[in-house]
């Protein structure tokens, strides 16, 4: 045996020669896999970096080790009790509120943070010029200072008192936690805010006590002690550790990351499927070579090891290329995302990809290739040569390998899902979808071949090619179908979710300025100001603040913190946590005599306009469910000490995206006619008019809070645009993976295709006939897969938007048609381009080469 050719060195040499001999098609296989790995690594690396950033920055995000937060003024004595806890090193109290600031003849809503000396206890605060913060002065963010052309020392009015601007608030690390802001931030001294009358019991503000622990403090014990202190307060006190703050910030990021990571995993699975299809066909075609090697004396395991080494080389190359591309993409992502994720969270090294997921991805490829490799090991050389090279793996072994590969793919998906249950649901959904697409593709090929028997010759030739390798055709169609399905469904869902918002940002004659807390005596004056500045179509809604006392005879008790905290985790598990919040918070009641333009009655009957007095209440349907109210239930409210009774007579569906003045609770006008109402006024005005209106309000109606919705919508729009770009890039990557798979499969089957084309040419087929047959083949391949998946995506996306997101769905036919045509055209283009070389070969050369 020692004289026989063999040994790892020999096998490695043969594998290397094989790689060099078929480098073009094998490189495509590697590229195909690399595209999937790149998407997977890029999304995983970026997500890991952001979440690591959140954890590292958690103290800076909160400004300390723990915080106690209340709505309104901070309870007397609580600060002293908290600061006296053993282990607490220092504390600082601050207030956050929104108010209108005036400066240089202009006015706008700003977010004020009123702080004490020592703020922040953790994290970075940068003022320009870099001097210590002074009392009696304010510091504004650059947007405000430069927007108003404020010079150092310029006066900024807040609550009727003017403060000199001493500098720019260049960076406040705790600001990163706020994705949305009503306006630029102003930093001032808490004592100054108190002196200006900005901190009163009637003000809308949030008080926060931030604590810093000493080096020997026990954070767990302190958290328990703080929760104990909070539990004895009558007002709700929220206790937040820096880990909580990080988790709260991380949650939406985690959700975004999961979405992006899932798309990455799906791209990896698509490309793996494609690479599997090509490698299986390639290895199947190596049966003859394996038999020849065996005849030459290579041992039974030789071909397995040679082609196994080849697969490992390809995998190594794909991993290397994929990791490099993934690193580059992850490094470039911050530029694409812009300010969607705080810049400080995106810094730092990218690290390494998740080891378990990466191992699963590699294992998946190996398991898929194993049956084809084992077939080379198991076949006898003589039998192979005599029986037409029909090497087969035992069915059981193939089944086991494919089963294990399916499990690895499922685990990859589950690991990227928010919860294991959601992950397994996704696995079931995607698995069914894949089987459906694969089965439909096989069925369609079968039907085409039978229906197409009498069809014109080019179509028949195209159908013949599709049916020649039904498994490969089925896999290619399933891969292309999955890519189209994921792309189109993501696009349609995004359109339905963001479409109305984007329409709002660009629509004319829609409210873009909301004025809050207009008192009855100010109403005429405010409306006159709006009319003077040319604001169009002001909408008004009275607002009466109240507390809910009981629903259907069940009292709503505003329990103490201790009780609430105890029940919270259980309630959250039952999905009732939201209901308690809805029931116990301050309610905004309104009254009107007909449903608004953005709402529709879905149950019961809305009262008739101008009808007699009635105790009728209309609730938004989701709110009714959350507080446990049904049609006919009695509701009791406390309006500034007065009891107000009514019964639910209708439920409404509200289109919240409309940016109209919408309310959860609408009462019959007769119920609230004597109640103390403030007014909400919404108007549409151009940017110049909005600035003048805000100036007018600051001077004449300082208690009125103007909210410029177009600024918020502008930010929403930028975020939506970013999400759209990310979705499109990943969708493009999926389609590109599918096309790469097609190109690689064409290259793998080039010899057979060249032979068939040469033969047809010998029989008298012209270039035109051959080109038409190729066009039919690839258009049918891409078009049918795209049509099938477009129909599925259309219906499932609609179902998801209507049933799960509870939004109106109007999927764009144009999007579906464009994607369908694009998929068919791209498939035809890639298919034709991949066949040009085979088409150009001289028939005699090809046929003699057989």
């Amino acid at each position, binding site marked *: 045996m020692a004289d026989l050719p063999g040994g790892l060195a020999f096998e490695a040499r043969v594998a290397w020669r094989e790689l060099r001999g078929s480098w073009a098609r094998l490189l495509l296989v590697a590229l195909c896999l690399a595209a999937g790995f790149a998407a997977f690594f890029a999304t995983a690396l970026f997500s890991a970096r952001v979440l690591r950033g959140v954890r590292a920055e958690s103290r800076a995000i909160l400004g300390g080790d723990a915080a106690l937060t209340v709505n309104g003024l901070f309870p007397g004595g609580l600060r002293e009790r908290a600061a006296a806890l053993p282990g607490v090193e220092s504390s600082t109290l601050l207030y956050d509120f929104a108010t209108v600031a005036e400066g240089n003849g202009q006015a706008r809503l700003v977010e004020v943070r009123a702080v004490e000396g020592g703020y922040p206890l953790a994290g970075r605060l940068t003022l320009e010029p870099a001097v210590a913060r002074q009392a009696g002065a304010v510091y504004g963010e650059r947007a405000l200072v430069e927007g108003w052309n404020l010079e150092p020392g310029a006066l900024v009015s807040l609550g009727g008192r003017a403060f000199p601007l001493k500098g720019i608030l260049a960076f406040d690390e705790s600001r990163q936690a706020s994705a949305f802001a009503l306006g630029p931030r102003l930093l001032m001294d808490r004592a100054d805010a108190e002196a200006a009358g900005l901190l009163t019991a009637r003000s809308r503000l949030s008080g926060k006590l931030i604590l810093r622990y000493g080096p020997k403090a026990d954070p767990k014990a302190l958290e328990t002690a703080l929760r104990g202190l909070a539990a004895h307060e009558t007002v709700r006190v929220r206790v937040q550790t820096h880990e909580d703050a990080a988790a709260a910030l991380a949650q939406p990021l985690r959700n975004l990351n999961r979405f992006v990571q899932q798309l990455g995993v799906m791209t990896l699975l698509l490309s793996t499927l494609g690479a599997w299809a090509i490698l299986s066909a390639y290895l199947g075609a190596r049966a003859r070579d394996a038999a020849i090697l065996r005849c030459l004396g290579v041992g039974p395991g030789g071909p397995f090891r040679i082609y196994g080494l080849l697969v490992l080389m390809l995998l190594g190359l794909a991993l290397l290329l994929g990791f490099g591309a993934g690193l580059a993409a992850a490094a470039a992502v911050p530029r694409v995302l812009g300010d969607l994720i705080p810049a400080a969270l995106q810094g730092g090294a990218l690290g390494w990809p998740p080891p378990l997921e990466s191992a699963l991805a590699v294992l998946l490829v190996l398991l898929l290739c194993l049956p084809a490799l084992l077939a080379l090991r198991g076949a006898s050389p003589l039998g192979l040569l005599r029986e037409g090279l029909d090497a087969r793996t035992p069915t059981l072994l193939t089944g086991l390998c494919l089963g294990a590969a399916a499990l690895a793919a499922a685990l990859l998906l589950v690991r990227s899902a928010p919860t294991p249950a959601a992950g397994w649901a996704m696995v079931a959904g995607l698995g069914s979808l894949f089987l459906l697409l694969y089965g439909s593709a096989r069925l369609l090929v079968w039907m085409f071949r039978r229906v197409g*028997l009498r069809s014109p010759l080019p179509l028949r030739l195209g159908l013949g090619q599709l049916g*020649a390798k039904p498994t490969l055709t089925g896999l290619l169609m399933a891969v292309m179908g999955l890519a189209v399905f994921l792309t189109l469904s993501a696009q349609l869902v995004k359109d339905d979710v963001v479409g109305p918002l984007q329409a709002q940002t660009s629509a004319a004659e829609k409210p873009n300025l909301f004025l809050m807390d207009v008192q009855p005596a100010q109403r005429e004056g405010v409306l006159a100001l709006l009319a003077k500045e040319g604001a169009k179509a002001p909408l008004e809604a009275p607002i009466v603040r109240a507390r809910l006392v009981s629903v259907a005879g069940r009292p709503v008790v505003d329990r103490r913190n201790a009780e609430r905290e105890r029940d919270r985790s259980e309630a959250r598990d039952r999905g009732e946590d939201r209901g308690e919040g809805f029931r116990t918070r301050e309610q905004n009641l309104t009254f009107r005599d007909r449903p608004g333009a953005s709402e529709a009655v879905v149950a019961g009957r809305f009262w008739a306009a101008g009808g007699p007095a009635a105790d009728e209440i209309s609730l938004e349907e989701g709110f009714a469910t959350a507080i446990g109210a049904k049609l006919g239930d009695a509701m009791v409210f406390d309006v500034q000490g007065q009891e107000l009774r009514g019964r639910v007579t209708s439920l409404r569906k509200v289109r919240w995206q409309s940016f109209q003045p919408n309310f959860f609770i609408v009462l019959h006008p007769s119920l609230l006619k004597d109640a103390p109402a403030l007014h909400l006024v919404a108007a549409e005005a151009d940017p110049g008019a909005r600035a003048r209106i805000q100036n007018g309000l600051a001077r004449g109606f300082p208690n009125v809070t103007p909210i410029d919705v177009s600024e918020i919508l502008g930010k929403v729009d930028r975020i939506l645009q970013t999400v759209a770009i990310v979705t499109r890039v990943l969708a493009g990557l999926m389609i590109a993976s599918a096309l790469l798979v097609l190109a690689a499969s064409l290259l793998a089957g080039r010899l057979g295709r060249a032979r068939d084309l040469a033969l047809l040419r010998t029989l*008298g087929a012209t*270039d035109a006939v051959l080109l038409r047959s190729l066009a039919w083949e690839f258009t049918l391949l891409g078009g049918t897969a795209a049509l099938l998946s477009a129909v599925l995506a259309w219906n499932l996306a609609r179902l998801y938007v209507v049933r799960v997101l509870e939004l109106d769905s109007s999927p764009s036919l144009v999007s579906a048609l464009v994607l369908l045509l694009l998929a068919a055209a791209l498939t035809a283009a890639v298919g034709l381009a991949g066949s040009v070389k085979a088409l150009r070969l001289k028939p005699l050369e090809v046929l003699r080469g057989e």
Partner: protein
Amino acid sequence: MIELRGLTKTYPSPEGGSLTVLEDVSLAIPKGASAAILGPSGSGKSTLLGLMAGLDRPTAGTVRVADQDLGALSEVALAAFRARTVGFVFQSFHLLAHFDALQNVLIAAELAGLEDAGAKAEEALKRVGLAERRHHVPGQLSGGECQRVALARAVVARPPILLCDEPTGSLDAKNADRVFGLLKELHQDLHATLVLVTHDAHLGAQMGLTFALERGRLVDGQHG
């Protein structure tokens, strides 16, 4: 008839320069005659056959087949010539693997523009004794049966020229005899000109004319 004059064919050599496969070959085969082209491997037999079929163009010289100068024909006209004038039989059958026997023959009939192509394809298969197996794909047929399908495909359009490249080279003796017998019958029935490339002198001897090629040159041409 087939008339070749001063035919030369060279290919670029991988080492640079050129490789001459045929050199100054001239021969004539009268209409309805049968001819064998003999020679060892690499002597240029198949290249010569390909030039007669219009599958390639000569470097120098002229090819006239059935009164047509193939050098003057466009690619489209050459395709039409192959479809209607020439029937080709290869050593390794070259059937379309994913079509059944009937479809393989039918495709050739349709490319030739035959009316009632389906019936003619069925008839051709019947003629070679494969009517019962018309719906079998090549993978389900033996080597001899595959070559008979290829024969049916070659004659379905009743072409005036039949070109065969080692048609029995891949078959056992029994099947080779059957295929060769069929070929001769079809040649007689169709009154077609039959050109057979082979290195089997025994087969060559059964043809009316024999031409011998050696290193691309015609070294012998005689009436059998």
